């Protein structure tokens, strides 16, 4: 069989590429049209201390970890951002007032996130705990606004934002 083929002078076998190309173009068009690069979903991790770590081993630890035991969603931090909102048909669920609380007291910073970021940058140079910060927001604040405040904290250098129970 092979020897006979060698001596034959038949036409060269050709692969029909055109139908494959047609199909490839159709598939390409489908994927180009369903491709949405702008809406990429991401996530931020919010780890809590494990139960075995939070269990106190002696009396001193019980005192120092009392706040964390009361509410493990909170990490120990020196600064707390307080975010207020009003339902007055103007700022429904939007930020109406921002303030910072530390050991010295409460300091209002208006309602601008830029001001908050600048104030937090100043604080981050002086406070002992430069990683953690607490966020106490009103229950009616919109989730988007909470993330905007978290962004401001991240930009000021505070990497771990923990949540405080909303007042009321």
């Amino acid at each position, binding site marked *: 069989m092979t020897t006979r083929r060698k001596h034959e002078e038949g036409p060269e076998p050709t692969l029909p590429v055109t139908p494959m190309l047609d199909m490839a173009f159709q*598939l*390409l068009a489908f994927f180009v049209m369903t491709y949405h690069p702008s809406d990429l979903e*991401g*996530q931020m991790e919010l780890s809590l201390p494990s139960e075995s770590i939070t269990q106190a081993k002696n009396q001193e630890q019980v005192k120092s970890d009392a706040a964390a035991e009361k509410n493990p969603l909170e990490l120990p931090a020196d600064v707390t951002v307080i975010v207020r909102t009003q339902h007055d048909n103007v700022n429904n669920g939007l930020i109406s007032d921002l303030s910072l609380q530390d050991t010295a007291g409460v300091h209002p910073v208006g309602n601008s996130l830029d001001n908050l970021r600048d104030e937090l940058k100043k604080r981050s140079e002086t406070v002992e705990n430069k990683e953690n910060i607490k966020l106490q927001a009103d229950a009616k604040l919109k989730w988007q606004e909470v993330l905007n405040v978290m962004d401001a904290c991240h930009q000021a250098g505070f990497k771990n934002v923990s949540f405080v129970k909303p007042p009321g």
Partner: protein
Amino acid sequence: MSHGGGGEGAAAEPNLTPLLDVVLQLLMFFMMCVNFVSEQVNEDIKLPRSQAVKPMDKSDPDVLFVNVKPFALQDFQDRLPADVLARVREKFRDGDECILVSGKEPMRQQELRVWLKQEYDDAKLAAEKRGDKEVKTAIVIRGHREADYGKVWDILDMCKNVGFRRFMLRALTKNTPGGAT
């Protein structure tokens, strides 16, 4: 061919192979980039935007999705069977907090607590069988941008009280102010 009557040369055909190579490469790129919507992810949730989010780690299989949004009847109008829709209509009014998890009817917080407890107990049994000390299941909170902070906090607190220790907050990536918009 009529115009080629004078000579007996080979017919001129365009070489499609390089074109096909390029097309297949483009096809491969889009196929790899396409983000197929997971069953557990609810499309009605309009996620907030944030600069602090990191790309998702899709290799973590041990996750539970909890979607939170203000209830809107039109979201369910043509998607649920009539009897389920009637129950949902009785239970919620527009604007109420509504919790959506995969394979369940829209829930309120009390029902979520029961479901979370069952999931935690199952995960704990599985962890004990594997010899792990702690449940490693992560709760992924997908909050609608219009949802109230208080409702999201309640869910986080509930998950913590049930026993879960790993949480993730989902958001859409936003460009940094200095970067390209």
